[in-house]
């Protein structure tokens, strides 16, 4: 299982803050997981495509080539605006 988190504007757009799912067969990178999530429908495709977005794997920022393994925590969020 993997844990997928969504924050801020993305959380509102996909309609959930957190979900657990089995790492889909053939999905070994962040980019592949993102493509799988976007294929869920128009709402997901719009939320996770197009606009600038950051992804963290196990709480560290990751590129789309970043590797995924069972047990990982993956988070999707917009560019940060703290400070």
């Amino acid at each position, binding site marked *: 299982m993997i844990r997928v988190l969504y*924050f*801020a504007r993305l959380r509102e757009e996909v309609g959930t803050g957190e979900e657990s799912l089995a790492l889909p067969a053939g999905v070994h990178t962040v980019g592949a997981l993102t493509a799988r999530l976007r294929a869920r429908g128009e709402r997901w495709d719009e939320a996770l495509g197009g606009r*600038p977005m950051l992804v963290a794997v196990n*709480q*560290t920022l990751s590129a789309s080539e970043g590797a995924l393994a069972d047990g990982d925590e993956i*988070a999707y969020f917009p*560019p*940060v*605006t*703290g400070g």
Partner: protein
Amino acid sequence: MAGCIRVQTEAFDPGVELDALARGDAGAGALVSFIGRVRDDGAHAPVLRLTLEHYPGMTEKALGAIVEQARARWELRDVVVIHRVGAMEPGEPIVLVAVASAHRAAAFAACEFIIDRLKTRAPFWKRERTSQGDRWVEARAGDAQAAERWERDAGLHRE
């Protein structure tokens, strides 16, 4: 070395925090601080309230990494980073970065480095409430440029 990182919903008093910075350390000859306050930029309807969302766990980890990077570049005798989350009003302090060093050059540089990296790497998101509704604050290009400057300058500092 002393130092602290706090992410909290409660308001903080910058004066109290600065008074405690490097207290009792006579070698800390230079203290530099940055206080960020909730801003109403006047570009939209007046901001009534700001709500800060964050990623519990990663936020603390990201701030810790930024402070470690600053300590690797400059000799710092104390570092304090406090960031509020939750609801707050315009004018209230939202972030404090304070550093103590033997001399001012390191203290000024490290303080600016920490706030610049915080603004682009620490997972916080601002949502403004105005009389015309709520809106997520968009990231500013200038913040990314300020943070990139430290990548360019990396070769000029002791790593």
